[in-house]
């Protein structure tokens, strides 16, 4: 993705590590609250749980400026194409956290209206259980995502 593709051999590994380190420093999430998990996401970004400690308090309003799509809530069939479009409109590199049971697997709503898991339409990096997950679980998911980004290999998978 980007500079790593263009460099020769071992230099690429070093630059990829550097790029990964830079990317995981401050991950900007998109303001896309769907349902109840969005309220817990808001609590996570307020004073008591303070997502700012991990560099993610700047919730960007447009997908153009965000790196992370937190799917916080149940995805209805009417909202699924919209969410896919939002995911497409985010610039690379981008990651997705499926927050809560409804985003991960349809949760309590096994019916005609709810998409049974957001990984049907967009590739998900981190799943968070819970309905709604506590703010600490969202912060731990962010930490896990940072670890994942740090060890993200370049396109030749050499990390």
């Amino acid at each position: 993705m980007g500079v790593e593709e263009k460099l020769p051999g071992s230099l690429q590994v070093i630059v990829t590590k550097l790029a990964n380190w830079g990317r995981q420093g401050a991950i900007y999430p998109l303001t896309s609250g769907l349902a109840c998990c969005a309220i817990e996401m808001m609590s996570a970004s307020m004073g008591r749980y303070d997502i700012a400690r991990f560099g993610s308090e700047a919730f960007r309003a447009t997908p153009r400026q965000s790196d992370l799509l937190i799917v916080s809530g149940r995805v209805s069939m009417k909202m699924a194409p919209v969410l896919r479009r939002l995911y497409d409109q985010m610039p690379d590199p981008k990651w997705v956290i499926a927050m809560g049971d409804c985003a991960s697997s349809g949760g309590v709503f096994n019916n005609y209206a709810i998409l049974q898991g957001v990984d049907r339409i967009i590739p998900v990096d981190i799943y968070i259980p819970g309905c709604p997950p506590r703010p600490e679980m969202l912060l731990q998911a962010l930490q896990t995502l940072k670890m994942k980004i740090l060890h993200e290999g370049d396109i030749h998978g050499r990390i």
Partner: protein
Amino acid sequence: MANEPQIQQDDEVMLLNMGPQHPATHGVLRLVLALDGEVIRECTPVIGYLHSGFEKTYESKKYQQCVTLTDRMDYLNPLGNNLAFALAVEKLLGVEAPPRAQVIRVLLAELTRIQSHLVGLGSNGLDLGASSPIMYAFRDREMLLDIFEMVSGQRMMTSYIRPGGLAKDIPPGFEEAVQRFIDYFPEKLDEYHGLLTRNPIWMDRMVGVGKLTAEQCLELGVTGPMLRAAGIPRDLRKDMPYSGYESYDFQVVTRTESDCYARYLVRMDEMRESLKIVQQALNRIPDGPYVLDDFKHAYPPRQLISDQMEALIHHFKLATEGYRVPPGEVYSAIESPRGELGFYIVADGSGKPYRVHVRTPSFTNLQCLPVMAKGGFIADLVNMIAAIDPIMGDVDR
């Protein structure tokens, strides 16, 4: 599409989506705006982006399972939803919750009202660019969430108020925690007043914006703080009291200007009134069972099952097939932070409700947004949405 505003396509008007993903639409509400520069010619709300098929799912769940569904509808008023469902089922069963449960229900419903208004107030400030009120509002809300977690084990989706009474008895230390909040909160309310109420920018943006006459409110079936801000003192806690509300003395807060500023002030004073109710409820929590102890509607306590055969049978019946509700239908409504929240349940005598319809306040209140927005600016549309304070789980069900 049927949802686009039907206006002739002259080149002056621009169609714009204030769509499902927007920081100021309080959830996945989509507004199709016909704009003439900054002036809104026509605003058509398109909803359904959070339609989760609640009413169909209710029909496949037992009565005690439906309680967990009610939390997720208006996710800022979980205990209120539980209470509305519990009252409706209790009317069908022809039973009353024991007095201890009724008082605790009132106490928790009022705390949920404060918590819901805090989020509404905070996000209203955030929409208008004041980013500090939401920080303070969520700081106080965390204290309430701790109380809910202490009572039910869950911060938001408590499922604590169930048909027949409560899920568990209140833990020791509950009264002190509520008392600490009651002593702590009034001065914080004054802090919000100091922060916002006389703030010139706040008043410029709010006074005279989104005006609705009382007739328009009545015609459009608006209920809750929006109706009371238009000078009509209609509050189901006073008009059709439930769960013992007639024995508490509190004022129905009303204003007359019926603009965004009046709705903001009504919500602020309502929090003070709720606090008075909480104090009165706290002082009179009676002893006695927290749930109907004939165990036909609630699980008998654990220790009773081992030594009483009858309790074991009840427990087994409840766990397998749930309690049967005699056939009939009922519509019972409570005063949620957003207005009249009513459950219409048709029972066919089996363990599962035959039909559940929820009359939600946000769904009906949202109808007055096009009336308010016509002719206004986009910037005012933002705080009209905040003044209606819709919750999309409530709207789309």
